[in-house]
């Protein structure tokens, strides 16, 4: 695995801070009703992405559920285009067709953005199937929530993926809750990683608040898949600070519980290392913070100033066929 260098920590800090502030901005735009529909934010879970990016190779892919705004940024998608998508603008990643839950950029190895819980799990294995079929060296990181771990799609996919040694890593982004339902309430035991045991799939828990821990576990799993030894299940224990989506009174947990996790916040953990190892001064960090802030504002400006799509676009990308005979509806 690549070493954790001074630059690693600095990048982690800047990236994770940007993701956090980007999400905060989306929340603000939601309150202003510029972003509509559902909005599921990633605050608190950033280390899961930061660690994964450190371990990923150039041809490795990612697929996830609807909590999906910052992963594509990590993979190199211009964040302006993601913000524009959430505002329904033609400059968005899906030209305004997908919205908050459906960000895609295959060009950057990001395959969505999926709104049906558990629906992306077989797709992730399918992406891996094709890579194996064509002898490409790519590994697919397939993310899902703790709630999604209870879907049949997961179990059927696990069985085939291990039997066929597909180059996939299954990553349960275990933030403790599926909407208002805690992990303990959904099964006979609460160690999701143990679901791998029945399939004799390598599996284990990972500290998801610490990007180093995540990177190490990801590296091992990715290399296993790349060698042809098939999938791994990682149960990454993390936490979401915000509600499930924007309309969630959060009566299922205490403020104290949220505060406890904020004490081990991934961004402050990395910042502590930066200070301890004297990688940067407070003034330098302040400069980075200011850079992040202005980058977020640039995204907002771009998104707000971009035009909405033309009405005709409704019919432009349902099929490849250009003169497809749609029925009229009014």
């Amino acid at each position, binding site marked *: 695995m690549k070493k954790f260098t001074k630059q690693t920590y600095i990048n982690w800090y800047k990236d994770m801070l940007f993701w956090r502030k980007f999400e905060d901005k989306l929340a603000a735009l939601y309150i202003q009703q510029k972003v509509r529909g559902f909005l599921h934010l990633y605050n608190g879970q950033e280390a899961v992405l930061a660690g994964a990016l450190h371990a990923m190779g150039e041809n490795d892919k990612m697929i996830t559920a609807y909590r999906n705004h910052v992963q594509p940024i990590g993979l190199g998608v211009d964040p302006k285009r993601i913000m524009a998508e959430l505002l329904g603008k033609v400059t968005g990643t899906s030209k305004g067709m997908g919205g*908050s839950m459906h960000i895609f950029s295959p060009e950057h190895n990001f395959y969505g953005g999926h709104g049906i819980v558990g629906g992306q799990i077989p797709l992730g294995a399918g992406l891996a199937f094709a890579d194996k079929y064509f002898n490409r060296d790519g590994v697919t990181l397939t993310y899902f929530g703790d709630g999604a771990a209870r879907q049949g799609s997961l179990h059927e996919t696990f069985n085939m993926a291990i039997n066929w040694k597909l180059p996939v890593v299954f990553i349960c982004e275990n933030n403790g809750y599926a909407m*208002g*339902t805690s992990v303990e309430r959904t099964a006979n035991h609460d160690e999701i990683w143990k679901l791998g045991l029945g399939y004799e799939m390598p599996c284990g828990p990972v500290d998801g608040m610490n990007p180093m821990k995540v990177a190490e576990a990801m590296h091992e799993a990715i290399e296993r898949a790349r060698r042809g030894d098939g999938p791994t299940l990682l149960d990454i224990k993390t936490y979401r600070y915000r509600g499930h989506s924007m309309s969630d009174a959060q009566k299922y947990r205490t403020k104290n519980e949220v505060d406890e996790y904020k004490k081990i916040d991934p961004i402050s953990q990395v910042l502590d290392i930066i200070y301890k190892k004297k990688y940067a001064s407070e003034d330098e960090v302040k400069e980075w913070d200011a850079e992040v802030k202005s980058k977020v504002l640039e995204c907002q400006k771009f998104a707000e100033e971009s035009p909405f799509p033309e009405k005709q676009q409704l019919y432009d990308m349902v099929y490849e066929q250009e003169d497809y005979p749609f029925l009229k509806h009014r």
Partner: protein
Amino acid sequence: MKTIQFREAICEAMSEEMRRDESIFLIGEEVAEYNGAYKASKGMLDEFGEKRVIDSPIAELGFTGIAVGSAMNGNRPIVEFMTFNFALVGIDQIINNAAKIRQMSGGQLNCPIVFRGPTGSAGQLGATHSQAFENWFANTPGLKVVIPSNPYDAKGLLKAAIRDDDPVIFMESEQMYGDKMEVPEGEYLIPIGVADIKREGTDVTIVSFGKIIKEAYKAADVLEKEGISCEILDMRTVRPMDWEAIFTSVKKTNRLVILEEAWPFASISSEITFQVQENIFDHLDAPIRRITTADTPAPYSPVLLEEWLPNFNDVVKAVKDVMYIK
């Protein structure tokens, strides 16, 4: 009379029925401790306990099938889907099991079960979260499909659905849960399969169902000012369909506009159109017009969504078309 919200109508119907019949239970995601994703089961866990108000994991195929199995063995389950989009994960159990068990077992078994939850679009939620499957289910013999448009109808129809000895699909809307209306203090039931004339009129019949019927009301208000009288027929149930109600109204007005919040191809409005022309063709003074959502997946962007959804202006235009008014 008392004024209640749509969500309270649903809650009262379920609670009243659960009080009179021990075999009924409610199962679904977030129905118990969270009081329902849209608070339609508020207070029910407290009243009935966790044996009868059951939070399921996110496992639609499993809990749908478990509920169907229990219905084959004495229970009368109410299955809540957070929305009907997610019912697709469990649809095999509805179509292949619930709908078939009575006939396939030669009448030895039956499946008294209600599948309920929101249908249709609820704002900018994108393609997977904005679908209406009334016609999918209504296409299946063995199922009944109910889709009320207001709290009064919802309460009476849901009670009838729960008492029905066959599987009933019961469609609601996120955008209706807050709607308020007067309902009687005492118990009442509304029979499945009976349409309701929501507004009497003489010039044009508008057939609709579910929340989109509100666009027909708005259109009728506009048209009334121009001296055009619309009769609005709320089907309330789309399988079985109250054909007589449609035929009677069209025989009076001789013109028909259908408003449906679903894709146009092979929709409920397609079937109505066929039945009307087959049965009372001679009574039509103009070709039937129908308004639906666009023939595409739902888009996210607000400008495209507006284009995709039917609205009252479309109804006004269609009514004028069938009256040959420019």
